[in-house]
């Protein structure tokens, strides 16, 4: 058994507020990398905002909005090595874009089109997991199994605050610790599970406290600070690669958008709080940081946004250009070697 590793109570932050709180030091990111990180955030933000428009236009189905969670996704994913695996929930549906997946693949997933299928090995991005927390042990098994084969591959599993209540989260986290799997358990604590607030989900003071029960380090980071998320993830990965096992990272955010397009939060959320959270949203914070460092100006911002917008235009066009699926695909892929009666129904 390991020694107790008390959870890091206060939030790791790097980006200052431009006033009292100064910007902190950032390690492992030179200026091109800082801009690359910005490009990734813009790409995700654009994917999300366009998806909402496409949904209203009836061009994609139900969609799980991740507006305001771009820092968590881009910051953590940027800390990964190419060979590391990503295990997304529906909330990180577009994270494959950061690994070069074309937007039309993700758009097709939300369009209920088989073109939304991809080969996880191609991007080292596992399939989008819909049932809460059920992918946590998958990420553990992949990381552990790779280590058993002598490969230096880590994995990261994304899940929410509500997911920490599921038994399978617990079982996966415990396996990770016992097997010392090189995995990062990244909890996007956006403080809501649909209509259920964090206070009805747990009595723990912080979700990072859960790490104590597994004998693994638990750290808390400001999920609106892309650099802090990058750093916390990089440190967790360093530990994992060094054979020091898993880390639980709690990225504190706030779900300042509906749970999904089908959700009407007016019944349960606090509009004032949402407004305030939206003002302080992660992309704007990072833009102001880059501006303070003289790395970003109006022109470059517009250029980067235009680029992303163009990719989405191409993406939705490509998705809509997909031929209607061959009905036969219904019978494909369930088995490598299907029962002879598979077409009976």
């Amino acid at each position, binding site marked *: 058994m390991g020694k107790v590793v008390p959870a890091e109570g206060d939030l790791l932050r790097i980006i200052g507020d431009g006033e009292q709180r100064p910007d902190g030091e950032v390690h492992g990111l030179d200026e091109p990398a800082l801009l690359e990180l910005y490009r990734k955030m813009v790409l995700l933000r654009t994917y999300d905002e366009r998806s909402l428009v496409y949904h209203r236009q009836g061009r994609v189905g139900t969609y799980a909005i991740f507006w305001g969670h771009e820092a968590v996704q881009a910051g953590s994913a940027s800390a990964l090595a190419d060979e590391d695996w990503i295990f997304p929930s529906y909330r990180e549906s577009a994270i494959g874009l950061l690994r070069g997946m074309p937007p039309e693949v993700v758009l097709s997933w939300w369009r209920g089109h088989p073109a939304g299928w991809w080969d996880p090995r191609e991007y080292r991005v596992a399939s989008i997991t819909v049932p809460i927390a059920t992918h946590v042990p998958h990420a553990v098994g992949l990381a552990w199994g790779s280590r058993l084969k002598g490969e230096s591959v880590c994995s990261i599993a994304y899940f929410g605050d509500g997911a920490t209540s599921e038994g399978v989260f617990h079982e996966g986290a415990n396996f990770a610790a016992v097997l010392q799997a090189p995995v990062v358990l990244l909890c996007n604590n956006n403080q809501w*599970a649909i209509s259920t607030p964090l206070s*009805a989900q*747990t009595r723990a003071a912080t979700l990072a406290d859960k790490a104590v029960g597994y004998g693994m380090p638990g750290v808390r980071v400001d999920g609106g600070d892309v650099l802090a998320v990058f750093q916390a993830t990089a440190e967790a990965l360093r530990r994992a690669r060094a054979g020091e096992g898993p880390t639980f990272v709690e990225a504190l955010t706030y779900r300042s958008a509906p749970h999904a397009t089908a959700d009407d939060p007016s019944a*349960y959320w606090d509009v004032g709080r949402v407004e305030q959270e939206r003002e302080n949203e992660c992309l704007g914070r990072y833009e102001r940081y880059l501006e303070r460092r003289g790395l970003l100006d109006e022109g470059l911002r517009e250029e980067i946004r235009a680029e992303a917008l163009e990719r989405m235009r191409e993406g939705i066009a490509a998705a809509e250009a997909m031929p209607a699926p061959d009905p036969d695909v219904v019978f494909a892929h369930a088995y490598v070697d299907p029962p002879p009666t598979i077409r009976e*129904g």
Partner: protein
Amino acid sequence: MERTLVEAVNDALHVGMERDPTVMVLGEDVGRAGGVFRATAGLLDRFGPERCVDTPLAEAGILGTAVGLAMAGWRPVCEMQYESFSYPCLDQLITHVGRYRWRTGGAMEFPIVVRMPTGGGVRAPELHEDSPEAYYVHTPGVKVAIPSTPGDAKGLLTAALRDPDPVVVLEPKVLYRSPRGEVPEGEHVVPLGRARIAREGSDVTLIAYGAMVPTCLAAADLVDESAEVVDIRTLKPLDEETILGSVARTGRAVVVQEAPRVAGFGAEIAALLAEKAILDLRGPVVRVTGYDVPFPYWSIEHEYLPSPERVAAAARRVLAF
């Protein structure tokens, strides 16, 4: 009064909780939000946070806690947000909900109701369109009902709320918002274990439940011969008499189920006929079912779901036999 199926469910809960102060509702988002389908709307305001409880996100925890609540004298009604998210509670259902009374030598009752939306046809992402009834029906100690009309949705849930045994009520989500149907005001009970002749006919019997009942009614219009449609309504206890009676009259049967074919509930109906109607059968018992594959991505779900055309074709096959 004309209501949608989900309104009928909501009505049954309001009436049932008013009538019996030991009924309480628990589940994910059943309180503040009134349920993702609004099935529990208004319960929190009307009956308070002690009888309408937003639980943490943990299905086995919900059902396991319900077992303890029943021991404390409550009648817990657990909502599983979608059928596919009820799988984590199968262990509690099989090892405890269906066994605990037996384990006490009949001393205690466990009148637990588990309700959930079920089935496809709603163009939703993966794992929002399964039809898991076979898992439940195969489990001893548990009863299973599945309405196909708003009236039956209220009546069967009301019966479940008064039943001394655990009951799983599956609500076809494709029927939640339409069509509307007549729903009696106030107390309305449809006893468990009674099937319904949804349409009378003389040449072939189409046997179905839930969302496949309207499909069979549409299919009945497509065949030239006269098709009778039996809405099973309660999968356990099964109303063998009504099913056997109909097949005795028509001599021909088509069994329709949305779930994957292999070892689905339709097989139980076919087995019933093979054992108890063998002399009545003038042709094979043909099943029209979902396939032995995961429910497809929604853009092609119509290729998977039994359609009136597929059912009609099966009926013609049997009739031509």
